């Protein structure tokens, strides 16, 4: 729709409080022949229950009354109804369950489905398990499978790769907004760097900007280190009502705001419309905009709509000041810079400032209220993009941060050893001091589905 009716712009609300009580994940790898999908999924939920809640699985299995499963593409795992196998393998039968599919945003949508189940009163304890087995096919075939989530009639044959489908917006973004090319590379540099401090990550490395820009170009101008990894692995969170949450833990994390948006699957079909303003924005900010395309190629209406709902629901006006950390869906450097603008970290056209100002970095000297450390997990570029797990992985990382448990789940040698890795000698803590609120953005296609989830300390 090009104009909104009052009904479209209702602010979401939950009928009762909903909490996240535990999170778990596997490490993420390009190739994971040691474990089948069901084994990975069981290990992710077992970590949430045993390491997180400190509960015996047998005892925990007495609690759930609904389950949500999260997998992007049956093509990859080559098993229709894979969720039924995961569900059975983890001993959840005969509980009702659904498998959610919204492309790259599958994990974010799955978490929201579980939140809705609990908020409605239908369920009180809902495990959410997400995974993707992307290693059965070559990388080129994997790209072709992912590209079949673009329009098969009008886009797929034109490159069969999302790197091209993001190369097109990237050229246009650079043309219209003129960021330094180096600024985009800095996003990749930051996320590969943060991935070094995660035992779960697939692509940790300290790159120089020159190395990133001089790497092989996949589809211009995107170079290899600017693109997300293709991963196999699993992640889980457990969603609960208030009574269950406080029975499980003294420190549950509460859902403060949530939103979901969509836009045409084909980037081509995005007709011009007036900019949907966030609570912090005014029409004057965009008075010269009628000359330009919006959303066009350089913004995601779906992300803007999701953020609009989540901010209005949470009562957030200034996200940098009012949030302590952020996880974005950094599938490509360009999608990340666009997202900064869609979610109002900067007005449209000025996303580069969020990187150049240092606000996106935990280490920057700015006062904490002027920082919003972003993708401390390493994100999709540095850590993982096991598609069905990704949105859940983001929520897990925010959950640990808000509970001041980042070190428990990243610094402990136990996890590095578990995955056969060596903790770096120059290891540093990425715990955000006194983190109380965080937001996760889960994103599909070239912005066909986007979810926003705002979490805060619930105790």
């Amino acid at each position, binding site marked *: *729709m090009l104009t909104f009716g009052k009904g479209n712009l209702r602010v979401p609300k939950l009928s009762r409080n909903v909490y996240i009580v535990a999170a778990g994940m596997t490490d993420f790898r390009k190739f994971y*022949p040691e474990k089948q999908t069901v084994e990975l999924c069981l290990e992710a939920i077992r970590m949430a229950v045993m390491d997180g809640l400190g509960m015996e699985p047998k005892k925990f299995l007495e609690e759930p009354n609904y389950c949500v499963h999260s997998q992007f593409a049956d093509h990859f795992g080559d098993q229709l109804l894979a969720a039924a196998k995961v569900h059975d393998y983890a001993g959840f039968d005969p509980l009702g369950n659904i498998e959610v599919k919204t492309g790259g945003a599958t994990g974010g949508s799955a978490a929201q489905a579980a939140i809705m189940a609990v908020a409605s009163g239908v369920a009180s304890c809902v495990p959410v398990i997400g995974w993707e087995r992307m290693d059965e096919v070559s990388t080129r075939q994997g*790209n072709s499978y992912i590209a079949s989530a673009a329009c098969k009639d009008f886009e797929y044959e034109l*490159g069969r790769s999302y*790197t091209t489908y993001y*190369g*097109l917006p990237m*050229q*246009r973004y650079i043309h219209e907004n003129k960021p330094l090319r180096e600024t985009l590379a800095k996003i990749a540099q930051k996320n590969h760097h943060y991935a070094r401090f995660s035992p779960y990550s697939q692509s940790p490395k300290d790159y120089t900007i020159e190395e990133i820009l001089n790497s092989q170009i996949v*589809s211009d101008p995107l170079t290899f280190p600017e693109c997300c990894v293709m991963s196999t692995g699993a992640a889980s969170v457990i969603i609960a009502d208030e009574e269950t949450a406080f029975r499980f833990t003294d420190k549950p994390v509460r859902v403060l705001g949530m939103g979901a948006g969509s836009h045409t699957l084909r980037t081509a079909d995005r007709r011009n419309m007036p900019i949907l303003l966030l609570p912090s924005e005014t029409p004057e900010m965009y008075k010269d905009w009628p000359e330009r395309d919006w959303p066009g190629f350089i913004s995601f209406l779906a992300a803007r709509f999701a953020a609009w709902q989540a901010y209005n629901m949470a009562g957030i006006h200034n996200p940098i000041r009012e949030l302590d950390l952020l996880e974005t869906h950094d599938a490509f450097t360009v999608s990340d810079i666009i997202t900064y603008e869609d979610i109002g970290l900067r007005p449209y056209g000025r996303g580069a400032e969020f990187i150049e100002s240092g606000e996106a970095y935990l280490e920057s000297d700015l006062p904490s209220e002027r920082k919003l450390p972003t993708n401390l997990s390493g994100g999709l570029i540095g850590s993982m993009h096991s598609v069905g797990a990704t949105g859940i992985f983001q929520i897990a990382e925010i959950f640990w941060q808000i509970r001041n448990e980042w070190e428990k789940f990243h610094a402990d040698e136990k996890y590095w050893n578990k995955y056969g890795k060596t903790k770096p000698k120059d290891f540093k803590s990425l715990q955000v001091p006194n983190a109380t609120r965080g937001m996760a953005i889960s994103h599909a296609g070239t912005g066909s589905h986007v979810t926003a989830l705002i979490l805060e300390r619930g105790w």
Partner: protein
Amino acid sequence: MNNRKIRQHVMIPSDGAPKLAKEWFKEKIPDDLLVRFNPREIVHVHTYGGLSKFFKGLTEGALLGTKCWNCGGPEGNIWLPPRVHCPDCWRKMTWMTIDPTGAKIYSHSTTNLPGAGFKGTVPCPLISLEIPKVWTRPMSYLSKFAEDEPYIGMPVKPVFRRRNPTYTILDLAWVPVD
């Protein structure tokens, strides 16, 4: 007596193809793991349904779009890719021939590493187009290009694969106007 029954056998004929992967993604597979090749060749048939007119048009050298007279005004508002129905009023739209005069490149990305099964040669410049009276930005490719091409704003014109058509969107390409 029963022992003398004639029983048929179920056979699994050997196709002689290698069954187990020794390495994958340049990693050697440990001996204790079985990683089995699972090849396949599958044919789907896909209908273009109400959009058949568009793909047939390409093979005849015509670029067709659709327009909703119920919602759109007299000028512009042409859909390319076309849709049979208008997403704003759900009425059927009207087919019309698009005049590509004045078409320009809106954005571009030259791929070196397309996904498996891509039909073209590489490097291949993929492009998005800005066409007068068309309010979408269709994706296509530039089939002839010099070193400094494509660029945003570059004037282009369509060419059609009328001989040996693929009956896909690849039957439409764009070339420099000059």
